[in-house]
């Protein structure tokens, strides 16, 4: 057992941290969120140039063959800086599904993602299935795809979709061009300033060549994607919690009331200690989850459910306390602190919230 990051992992963290400090200040981020749903093609190009878009892909597919630990490192730093770029939708989610396929089309698509030349979103969730992601109605009959996918992350920017659908009694994942006849996208701003949308497929022509995976492989690919995506957003939340308590400590030292910095008040100190502890224990559980996922441990899925449940509780406490201790400034949009709370709220809602995962953990 060894719980220290490697030199390579530390260098990666350093690189992401430096980028965020110099090129991704809160002001810059706010402009990107306001003007273009959190996506700036220039920033995305930088990600590609830095090699970040290649991180989780195998060397055979032109990637760095990094795993969950490196992704967690990146997301922790992204979480601190509230990075809104569609890295999760493209590199993690689509990346995970595509990487699991041996199909030529999948390999070509990966290479375009790595270059920053295309964006791909996984369309799996539906309007009426809640968190039962395998309970799908979207289907292919007579070579035609019909159905509606909802809350498709980054749908507005996607050039193609990985669509989870039924074909007879099989489940299949197809790669469908966003411009194909019969595909329409209705996209929205998310509560935290990113983009998601409903994608409707109406008699879209589907050929065998578009199959990325099928049968057990398809449902397993979705499950593996959910595990990895949950791990990444939990790492992001850990970063966000760390930033939240540090910013709150800083603010209470500067803010004066009753003739002294409010950080002198014990009732606030203990609240900040609670925030710190929640961030730390969450980070500890993140270690367990990423190491198990990295080691392909049988318990990994269960641990990730546990982690997601823990993060749901901890980040709510930290996010709310951070806003509370900032007083009126905490609810003002111009301060970054409330944006962490928004991101935590989104993170909890994604891919199964605390309640869902608590039940899941209990039943596994």
């Amino acid at each position: 057992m060894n719980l220290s990051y490697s030199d390579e992992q530390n260098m990666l963290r350093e690189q992401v941290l430096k980028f965020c400090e110099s090129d991704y200040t809160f002001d810059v981020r706010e402009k990107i969120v306001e003007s273009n749903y959190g996506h700036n093609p220039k920033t995305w190009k930088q990600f590609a140039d830095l090699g970040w878009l290649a991180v989780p892909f195998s060397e055979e597919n032109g990637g760095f063959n990094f795993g969950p630990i490196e992704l967690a490192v990146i997301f922790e730093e992204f979480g601190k800086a509230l990075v809104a770029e569609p890295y999760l939708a493209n590199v993690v989610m689509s990346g995970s599904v595509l990487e699991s396929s041996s199909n030529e089309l999948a390999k070509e698509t990966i290479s375009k993602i790595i270059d920053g030349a295309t964006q791909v979103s996984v369309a799996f969730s539906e309007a009426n299935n809640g968190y039962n992601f395998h309970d799908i109605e979207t289907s292919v009959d007579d070579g035609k795809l019909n159905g509606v996918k909802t809350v498709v992350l980054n749908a507005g920017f996607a050039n193609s979709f990985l669509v989870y659908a039924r074909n007879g009694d099989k489940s299949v994942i197809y790669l469908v061009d966003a411009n194909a006849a019969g595909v329409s996208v209705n996209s929205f701003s998310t509560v935290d300033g990113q983009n998601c949308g409903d994608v409707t497929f109406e008699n879209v022509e589907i050929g065998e060549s578009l199959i990325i995976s099928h049968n057990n492989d398809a449902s397993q690919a979705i499950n593996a994607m959910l595990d990895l995506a949950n791990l990444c957003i939990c790492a992001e939340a850990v970063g966000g919690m760390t930033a939240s308590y540090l910013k709150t400590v800083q603010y209470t030292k500067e803010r004066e009331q009753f003739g002294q910095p409010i950080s002198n008040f014990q009732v606030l100190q203990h609240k900040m200690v609670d925030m710190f502890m929640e961030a730390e224990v969450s980070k500890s559980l993140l270690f367990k989850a990423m190491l198990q996922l990295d080691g392909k441990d049988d318990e990994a899925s269960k641990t990730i459910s546990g982690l997601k449940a823990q993060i749901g509780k901890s980040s709510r406490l930290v996010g709310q306390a951070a806003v509370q201790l900032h007083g009126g400034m905490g609810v003002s949009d111009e301060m970054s602190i409330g944006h962490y709370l928004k991101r935590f709220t989104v993170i909890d809602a994604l891919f199964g919230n605390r309640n869902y995962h608590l039940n899941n953990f209990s039943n596994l």
Partner: protein
Amino acid sequence: MDINFSDADNQFRQEVKDYLENKYPKHVKEKQNNGEQLTKQDMIDYHKSLYEQGWAGYNWPVEYGGTGWSPTQIYIFQEELGYANTPTILPFGLNMVGPVIYTFGNEEQKKRFLPDILEFNTWWCQGYSEPGSGSDLASLKTKAVRDGDHYIVNGSKTWTTLAQNADWIFCLVRTETTQKKQEGISFLLIDMKTEGIEVKPIITIDGDHEVNSVFFTDVKVPAENLIGEEGKGWTYAKFLLAHERFGIAGVPNQKYSLKLLKERTKDFADDDLKKKIADYEIELSALEFTELRTLAALANGGHPGAESSIIKIKGTELQQKLTEMYVEAAGQYILPYEGPEGFNSNNTPASNVSDFSSQAVSRYLNFRKTSIYGGSNEIQKNIIAKAILGV
């Protein structure tokens, strides 16, 4: 990073399992599994057994007779002890005064005290709290006045765990009245047989006699029993407290109790309790990895510092949560209660869960102490606020 144990680690785990299976005192195991209270002799027996195995100093350096184990080995050792439902290794000698002596004591003191601590020939207790000095420990008033080759000690200590069994007590005493109250404190070792020491039991809300008051009236203590320098006792006390907080969470024992609780409640149609148990299990796992992270930092040359306060707070909160769930699971059957020793075999309640229920409520009441001792959880928060958050 790597979560897997090496072959050598797995082999070591097997060695620990074999010891627990074959050499650990059987009568202690039996009593533990039946939820019976252990006698003083039982407690001596299992400590001696560990010594004979060469493992009493499981977290001591080799040069003082310890095992010199790696953090991973210590982790495995404690985990297996917990899984086997063994009683806690008493911390007063091995985890408290022992490390203080080998870190701050002189050669003479090391030779004189350390072997007996390892072999459990001496039973130690801790003389820190006083009736007027709880969380504000540095305000302590027990006085030690130098008189030639001796100190004359007057005052009283309280909440002294198992003082009724102890041969020696390590005490924080005031050797000087200074402006900064921390500066006049010294660390003194006192033989409990010395004239002028009186031990009086304090009965806790579970009906148990675990803690005591200890009174000192003109107690003559040889000056050679002073550890380190006069007036530096506070430094040693803080060192000890950081060590004490470490391992205080009892994660392996909690895992064992969790397993029992899950077995006990598996047929309950109570989704609320099931969710509570899941939440607890997740938190316990997070705590376990917090301990592992701290161990890893130690292995890389760090010291247990303020971070150990997180483990103290979270660990004791979880211990208490677990005892609450036991009480919830037992329901109305907790009412018949005749004290921590359980029921007289001639007169037991009709319920077939009476032993479980009685132990559940006993532990629930007893474990209220955990968020109070070792520096109350509120004090731990003050420590974190100051040392880590810098406010």
